[in-house]
């Protein structure tokens, strides 16, 4: 299946040509507006003299970035071709690289990993490929850049492909999931070769240009209609209860605020976004973690009732029986229910200066559920170079990724991240600072 909206992520260091590549993609696909181009032309001339046009400047958003020639944070860019719309999560590669790459990858369907043809496969490229695979991105496009600086050599290209492929062979073992599909292509972002237009300098390469591939690539992962249905309840709609009553468990309706447009004051709908799969009117459903069962009486949307709904639609379900359901509970089919547990084993990407250690307490958010979580132990830390899990580990420091055992204050309904990105993910929040300090990918119920 092709989607008409493709989200992809790029990551890279200051001088590996990432900003130039994105600038080139936007510029050559005529997505750069005249006033933006004037800004860039003026800034290029100030820095590099008359006639210079530094496409990298197109992507620098903040004053400090322009002044220091760095990229501070993930930026989101938008462009479209007649075939597809694109959202780029553009991640800087310095300092906070893991944090930024994980953030960008968490919503992406595809990753563009850059390799500098002169410098070879660096730790940065490896880390990006590993994180992309771990976060379940189904397709990695390895762009071997700066081919103009290695005389467009096929030999050099083949050498780097072999090196990267041998590294990538270890990905499935460490991530525990099917390896991503990897496509290699030789490009020169500076000259614009194989970015939007196919290159004439590399006749030995007969694959598509980068943009062509982005337009065609099949990315069905995050839109799994044939996966089990998962519907986390976000909000309870009860017109009879008034604004303040909605979203809370039922406690007897008050009639302080009249319903709009003659809405039934007894109306009770469970609102949320289908995380995966599809639901039909009349389906038998179970509500987790409690396990109560009922049937779907109606699938409501503002635009009318539906017979059937699929992910990622936002909807409101009405159920045949009055169950006491509140935010954070999960509606699914009883024969394909999610796991319910309070002890989890998960891979955690750590994003804080204060390390994660056994005994640490955090606020955990998974789907629409908040709970307290205590770290029982740190099992291992992944070495990104060798893709080995080193055991045992005492803590996860900033930018570490490792396997952690957690206990939560309330049971969670979840799936392993490898089978469901939405119900298998969580964030950890520091109780004191309220900072988001960790990204978690659930492996299984902890033994």
């Amino acid at each position, binding site marked *: 299946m092709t*989607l*008409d*909206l493709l989200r992809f992520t790029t990551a890279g260091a200051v001088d590996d040509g990432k900003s130039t590549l994105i600038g080139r993609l936007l510029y050559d696909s005529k997505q750069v*507006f*005249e*006033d*933006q181009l004037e*800004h860039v032309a003026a*800034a290029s001339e100030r820095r590099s003299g008359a006639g210079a046009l530094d496409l990298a400047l197109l992507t*620098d*958003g*903040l*004053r400090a970035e*322009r002044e220091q020639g760095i990229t*501070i*944070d*993930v*930026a*989101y*860019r938008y462009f*479209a071709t007649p075939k597809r*719309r694109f959202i780029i999560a553009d991640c800087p590669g310095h300092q906070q690289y893991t944090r*930024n790459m*994980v*953030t960008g990858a*968490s*919503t992406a369907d595809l990753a563009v990993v850059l390799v500098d043809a002169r410098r070879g496969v660096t730790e940065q490229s490896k880390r990006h490929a590993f994180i992309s695979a771990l976060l379940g991105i189904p397709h990695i496009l390895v762009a071997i850049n700066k081919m103009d600086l290695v005389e467009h050599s096929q030999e050099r290209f083949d050498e780097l492909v072999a090196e990267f492929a041998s590294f990538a062979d270890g990905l499935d073992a460490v991530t525990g999931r099917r390896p991503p599909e990897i496509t290699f292509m030789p490009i020169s972002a500076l000259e614009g070769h194989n970015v939007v237009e196919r290159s004439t300098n590399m006749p030995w390469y007969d694959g598509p240009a980068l943009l062509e591939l982005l337009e065609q690539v099949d990315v069905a992962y995050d839109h799994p*209609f044939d996966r089990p249905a998962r519907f986390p309840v*976000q*909000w309870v*709609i*009860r*017109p009879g209860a008034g*604004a*303040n009553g*909605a*979203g809370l468990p039922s406690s007897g309706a008050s009639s302080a605020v009249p*319903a*709009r*447009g003659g809405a*039934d004051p007894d*109306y009770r709908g469970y*609102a949320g*976004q289908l995380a995966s799969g*599809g639901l039909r009117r009349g389906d038998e459903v179970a509500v987790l973690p409690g396990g109560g069962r009922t049937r779907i009486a109606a699938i409501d949307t*503002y*635009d009318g009732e539906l017979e*059937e709904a*699929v992910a*990622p*639609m*936002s909807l409101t379900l009405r159920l045949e029986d009055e169950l006491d359901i509140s*935010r954070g509970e999960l509606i699914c089919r009883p024969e394909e229910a999610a796991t319910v547990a309070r002890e989890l084993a998960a891979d955690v990407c750590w994003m804080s200066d204060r390390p994660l250690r056994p005994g640490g307490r955090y*606020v955990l958010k998974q789907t629409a559920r908040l709970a307290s979580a205590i770290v029982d132990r740190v099992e291992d830390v992944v070495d990104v170079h060798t893709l080995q899990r080193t055991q045992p580990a005492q803590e996860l420091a900033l930018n570490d990724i490792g396997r952690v055992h957690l206990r939560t204050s309330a049971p969670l309904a979840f799936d392993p991240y490898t089978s469901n990105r939405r119900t298998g*993910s*969580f964030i950890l*929040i520091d109780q004191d600072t*309220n900072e*988001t300090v960790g*990204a978690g990918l659930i492996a299984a119920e902890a033994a």
Partner: protein
Amino acid sequence: MAVATRPQLSHLRALESEAIHVMREVAAEFERPVLLFSGGKDSIVLLRLAEKAFRPAPFPFPLMHVDTGHNFPEVIEFRDRRVAELGERLIVASVQESIDKGRVVEETGPRASRNQLQTVTLLDAIAEHGFDAAFGGARRDEERARAKERVFSFRDDFGQWDPKNQRPELWNLYNGRIKKGENVRVFPISNWTELDVWEYIDSEGLEVPSIYFSHERPVFKRDGMLYAWREGTELIEGEEVFNETVRYRTVGDMSCTGGVLSKATTLEEVVVEIAATRITERGETRADDRVSEAAMEDRKKAGYF
């Protein structure tokens, strides 16, 4: 149940669903949210998304407009009509009142604008009503500082945005935890482009203020932009008022929003025009962003949207 017959979401419906999800998260996790409604196209879309998220119940938050007193009269008329249709509550925070109370000092001269002043009025209103989350219609494609902003944009108790220290935003798991006095600006249509907004307005059949369509009005030319003339406008020597056929791509203060020459009189024609344009909406129409390379960034750090 053949897979092939399953409905597939268009990019516009996928963006819509994502935005509805964001709105429901805010309603559930904050005590006192508010939705900023200016009468402009982006906040018109927010209102429709709120209907889709919360009907048949009333919205679990009021609407608020920061009125500079220099808004287009057509927009104010539309604002009040739309709010009445929805049957929701509107709070008007007035820049004029902030001036009268001495909270801010009115700029003078022909280039006077109330654009800077509205940040104070906004922050005062947020404090007065104790709002802890405010929905805005800002989009990341609008401006390069906005390209860096989160969907949940954390503000400290001075209302400031710290772009170097934003919370990472993973999957669709938003961190809404704040301390008293802090607030979050929430941008449900962060991932929409200007064209998406117009296509959505068209597909939903939403009404927009008449100034978005081509019309003739008295204007004057300044810094290459066509500004609306109104009673009391101070002209600079050499400027003259003439009639021109224009429409507006953005709806801001009359004093800093320029019109564009256009013959688009229907939503369809506007969509065609936007699809073909080679200039960004802010570059073409907003004097407030032209002040410096980082004008928007500076205003955002001070508490602006």
